[in-house]
C-alpha cells in the first residue's frame, strides 16, 4: 500500500504564491515550524524503516510473488522519495534580505527565444530595459528572424544570433544559444530570462547583493505564471518547489538553476567551460591514442596498403601515435602532443605527395581509389570532423582512409566538431540548467534561492504543450542522472548529492504508480492479496507512518496549495515512464529523444481525450474492478474487510487520476488573445 506517493520534487500544485511577493524575515513562528518539521521528519524516517523492515521480512505473500514483489519495491521507492523530501524540508531556510546591490557591477540581461511571437519577446525585452539597476539587454534569437532583429534594434536592444561557426555543427539548443552569447558579451553577471518571463524593475536590485560573497555563482528566483486560472487545471505553478523544496536545498547549498529568472556569475561559468574543455580534450586524446594501434593495423591489411607510399605513410602515422602516447604519459601538454603528431604527419604527407606526383598515372589511380574505410570506434561527431576537414589533406592518400583520417583529426586541441572550444553551459542534457548547477556545486561554488517573485511568465495553455514540457523536463533530468550521476561526481558534499538525487529519484515514480493501480484491481477482481494478511500488525505499522508523512507534508506546505501537484505527479505516470525509457535509449544507445515539437498555437478544436488515454483506461479498470468486487461480495465470494480497504485505495487512486478530466475539458476554453500556448517552454 502506498505511504503517500508524493513524487513532489518538481511537479507541484496551484498558485497562491502571491503572498511571497516580499521576502519574509525569519521569526519565532518559523522556528517553531522548523522544529515541528524536524520532529515529523524523524518520525517519518523511524516509522518508515519500521514498516518496511516488517514488510520485507514478515508480510510478503510469496504465492503471489509477481505482484507482492513489485508492490513492496514500489513502497520502498515511495518511502525513499518521502525520506528525501523530509530531509529537504526539515532544513528549509528563510533567508533574510540580502545586502543592497553594490553599485558599478556590469550586468547582461539575456532573453532567450527560438520561435515565440515577436510581440511577446518584445514585451519581455521592454520590461527588461526598465530594470532599474544599470545593465545591457540582449535578445538571443535562435531563430535568426529579421523581424525580431528589426524590433530589437528599433528599441535599442542588443540582438545576438548564432555566428557562422555553428553551421553544420551541433547546436545544443538553449545551452548553445547561451554559450554563443557568452562569447559575444562581457558582463560580470548574467540575468537569464525565458522569452515569456517579464521581469520586475527591482529584480537586480534585490538579488545582486548576494554576490558580495565571492563564492556565490547563482541566484535563482521563483518561476510564477500569470496566465494560470486559480484552479490551475494543468498544475503549472510549483509553489512547493519554489518554496520549501528550493529553500530546503538552499540550506544544504544545493539550490539549483532552473533555466530562467536566475542571475549567474560569468567567472564561474567560464571556469566550468574551461575545466570541461580540459577534461574533454584529454578524454578524446586518450581514446584516440588507445585506438590508434588497431586502426593502423586494420588499415595496413587493406589492399591499398600494398602501395609503398601508403605503407610508408601508415607506418609513420603509427610511429607518431606511439610517440604521442608515451609523451602524454610522461606529462607533455595536449598542445605539445598534438603539435608533434600533426607536424610529423604533415611532413610524411608532403614526402608522400612528392612521390605520388612522380608515380605513373595507373598507380595514382590505385591510390585515389582507396575506398571508404572500415568503421572505427569513434562517434559520429568525430567522424564528421573528418569530412569537415579535407582542405589541406585532400591530396594525401590518407584522405581516402576514413578511419586513419578521423584518428589524426581526433589528436588535436581544436575540437573541430564543436562550434566553440569552451562551452560554459552544460550540453549533456536537454535540461542544461540542472547539469550546469551541479557542475558549479562540484567546483565549490555556492548557490542561493531567493524567495520572491521577480518575474511573471506564461504557462502552456493547451494540454499537448503542457505534456511536452513535462516530458522534456523529465527526460532532461533522467539524462543528467545517467550521464553525470551526482554520486559519481567529485567535489560535492553528501548533502548536495542527496539533494540532486531527490529530484532525479522523484522522476522514477511512474513505475511505482502502475503498481499502486494494479494491486487493488488484482484483489478486487481475483482476490489476490500481495500481503500475507490485512492483520492488526499491518495497520499498526502502516497507519502511523501514513499519518506522520501526511502531517509532514501538511506542515511543510503550510499556506500553499499542493493537491494539484500531488495529482499530477501521480496521474502523469505514462509521461514519466516514457521519459525514463526514451532517456535511457538516448544515453545508452545514442537514439534521439524524439519528443514532439511543441505546437505553436493552441491546438484543441475539441477536447483531446486521446492524450490521456492511459489514465482514462486506468480509471475505467478501477471502476469496473470495484463493480466486480461488489458482485463477488453479493454472491458471497471475497473478504468484506479486504474489499473495503481496497475500495478506499481505489478511491484514492481515482481522486488522484481524476485531475485528467478537468485538464482535458480545459482545452475547450477559448484562448485569451495575446497569449500563446508555448510560453514558458523555451
Amino acid at each position, binding site marked *: 500500500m502506498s505511504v503517500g506517493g508524493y513524487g513532489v520534487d518538481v511537479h507541484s500544485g496551484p498558485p497562491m504564491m502571491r503572498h511571497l511577493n516580499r521576502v519574509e524575515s525569519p521569526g519565532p513562528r518559523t522556528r517553531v515550524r522548523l522544529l515541528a518539521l524536524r520532529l515529523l521528519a524523524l518520525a517519518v524516517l523511524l516509522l518508515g524503516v519500521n514498516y518496511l523492515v516488517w514488510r520485507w521480512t514478515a508480510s510478503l505473500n510469496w504465492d503471489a510473488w509477481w505482484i507482492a514483489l513489485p508492490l513492496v519495491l514500489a513502497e520502498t521507492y515511495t518511502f525513499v522519495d518521502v525520506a528525501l523530501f523530509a530531509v529537504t524540508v526539515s532544513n528549509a531556510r528563510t533567508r533574510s534580505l540580502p545586502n543592497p546591490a553594490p553599485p558599478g557591477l556590469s550586468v547582461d540581461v539575456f532573453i532567450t527565444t527560438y520561435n515565440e511571437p515577436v510581440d511577446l519577446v518584445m514585451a519581455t525585452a521592454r520590461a527588461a530595459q526598465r530594470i532599474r539597476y544599470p545593465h545591457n539587454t540582449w535578445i538571443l534569437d535562435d531563430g535568426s528572424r529579421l523581424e525580431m532583429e528589426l524590433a530589437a534594434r528599433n528599441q535599442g536592444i542588443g540582438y545576438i544570433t548564432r555566428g557562422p561557426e555553428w553551421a553544420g555543427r551541433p547546436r545544443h539548443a538553449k545551452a548553445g544559444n547561451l554559450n554563443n552569447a557568452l562569447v559575444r558579451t562581457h558582463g560580470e553577471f548574467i540575468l537569464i530570462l525565458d522569452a515569456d518571463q517579464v521581469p520586475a524593475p527591482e529584480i537586480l536590485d534585490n538579488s545582486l547583493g548576494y554576490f558580495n560573497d565571492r563564492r556565490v555563482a547563482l541566484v535563482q528566483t521563483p518561476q510564477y505564471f500569470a496566465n494560470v486560472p486559480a484552479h490551475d487545471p494543468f498544475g503549472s505553478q510549483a509553489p512547493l518547489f519554489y518554496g520549501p523544496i528550493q529553500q530546503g536545498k538552499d540550506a544544504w547549498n544545493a539550490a539549483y538553476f532552473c533555466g530562467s529568472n536566475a542571475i549567474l556569475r560569468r567567472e564561474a561559468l567560464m571556469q566550468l567551460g*574551461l575545466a570541461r574543455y580540459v577534461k574533454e580534450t584529454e578524454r578524446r586524446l586518450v581514446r584516440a591514442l588507445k585506438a590508434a594501434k588497431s586502426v593502423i593495423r586494420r588499415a595496413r591489411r587493406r589492399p591499398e596498403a600494398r602501395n609503398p607510399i601508403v605503407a610508408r605513410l601508415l607506418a609513420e602515422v603509427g610511429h607518431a601515435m606511439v610517440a604521442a602516447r608515451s609523451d602524454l604519459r610522461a606529462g607533455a601538454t595536449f598542445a*605539445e602532443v598534438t603539435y608533434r603528431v600533426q607536424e610529423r604527419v604533415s611532413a610524411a604527407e608532403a614526402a608522400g605527395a612528392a612521390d605520388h606526383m612522380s608515380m605513373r598515372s595507373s598507380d595514382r589511380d590505385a591510390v585515389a581509389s582507396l575506398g571508404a574505410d572500415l568503421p572505427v570506434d569513434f562517434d559520429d561527431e568525430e567522424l564528421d570532423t573528418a569530412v569537415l576537414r579535407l582542405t589541406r589533406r585532400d591530396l594525401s592518400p590518407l584522405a581516402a582512409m576514413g578511419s586513419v583520417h578521423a584518428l589524426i583529426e581526433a589528436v588535436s*586541441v581544436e575540437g573541430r566538431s564543436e562550434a566553440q572550444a569552451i562551452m560554459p553551459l552544460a550540453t549533456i542534457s536537454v535540461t542544461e540548467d540542472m547539469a550546469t548547477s551541479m557542475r558549479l556545486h562540484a567546483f565549490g561554488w555556492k548557490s542561493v534561492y531567493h524567495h520572491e517573485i521577480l518575474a511573471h511568465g506564461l504557462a502552456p495553455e493547451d494540454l499537448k504543450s503542457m505534456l511536452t514540457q513535462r516530458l522534456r523536463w523529465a527526460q532532461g533530468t533522467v539524462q543528467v542522472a545517467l550521464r553525470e550521476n551526482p554520486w559519481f561526481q567529485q567535489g560535492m558534499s553528501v548533502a548536495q548529492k542527496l539533494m540532486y538525487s531527490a529530484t532525479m529519484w522523484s522522476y522514477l515514480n511512474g513505475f511505482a504508480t502502475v503498481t499502486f493501480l494494479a494491486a487493488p484491481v488484482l484483489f478486487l477482481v481475483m482476490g489476490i492479496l500481495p500481503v500475507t494478511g490485512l492483520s492488526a500488525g499491518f495497520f499498526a505499522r502502516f497507519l502511523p507512518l501514513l499519518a506522520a508523512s501526511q502531517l509532514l507534508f501538511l506542515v511543510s506546505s503550510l499556506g500553499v496549495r499542493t493537491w494539484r501537484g500531488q495529482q499530477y505527479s501521480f496521474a502523469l505516470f505514462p509521461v514519466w515512464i516514457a521519459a525514463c525509457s526514451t532517456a535511457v535509449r538516448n544515453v545508452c544507445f545514442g537514439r534521439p529523444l524524439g519528443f514532439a515539437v511543441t505546437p505553436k498555437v493552441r491546438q484543441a478544436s475539441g477536447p483531446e481525450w486521446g492524450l490521456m488515454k492511459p489514465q482514462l483506461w486506468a480509471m475505467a479498470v478501477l471502476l469496473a474492478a470495484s463493480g466486480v468486487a461488489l458482485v463477488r461480495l453479493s454472491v458471497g465470494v471475497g473478504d468484506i474487510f479486504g474489499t473495503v480497504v481496497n475500495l478506499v485505495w481505489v478511491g484514492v487512486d481515482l481522486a488522484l487520476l481524476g485531475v485528467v478530466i478537468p485538464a482535458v475539458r480545459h482545452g475547450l476554453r477559448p484562448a485569451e488573445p495575446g497569449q500563446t500556448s508555448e510560453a514558458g517552454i523555451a
Partner: protein
Amino acid sequence: MRRDFLRCDIEWSGRNAVVKIHGTLNRVSAQNLRGAVRRSIDAGAKLVVIDFTALESIDSSGMGALVGALRSARLADRDLRIAGLNPRVLHTFKHVGMDRVLRPFDDILSAIAAR
C-alpha cells in the same frame, strides 16, 4: 593601471610573432588578445608566442580567450605558445588544469626553441 586594460605589442623574430601583453587579461580585455593573435596569423606568423611577463592577472574568460587563440592558430596550421607567467597567473592557470593544455615556458627563447 586600469582594471580592464590590456595592451598587446607585437614583435617579430623571423616568422615568429611575439605578442607581449601588458595589464589584465579578463572578460572585457580578452578581445584585444584575440585581435592581436588574429593580426599576427594574418601577417603570416608561423608561431605566435604570448609573452606574459607584463601580465598582472588573468581570469577564466581570459584563459578562454587563450584557448580560442590556440584554436584559431591550429585551424590555420600555425602554433601558439605562452611564456613568462608570474606565480599568481600560473596559480590561476593550474587551478582549472590549463597547464595540461599549454606548457607555460619560462621565457620566449625556450618557447620558440621547443619542439
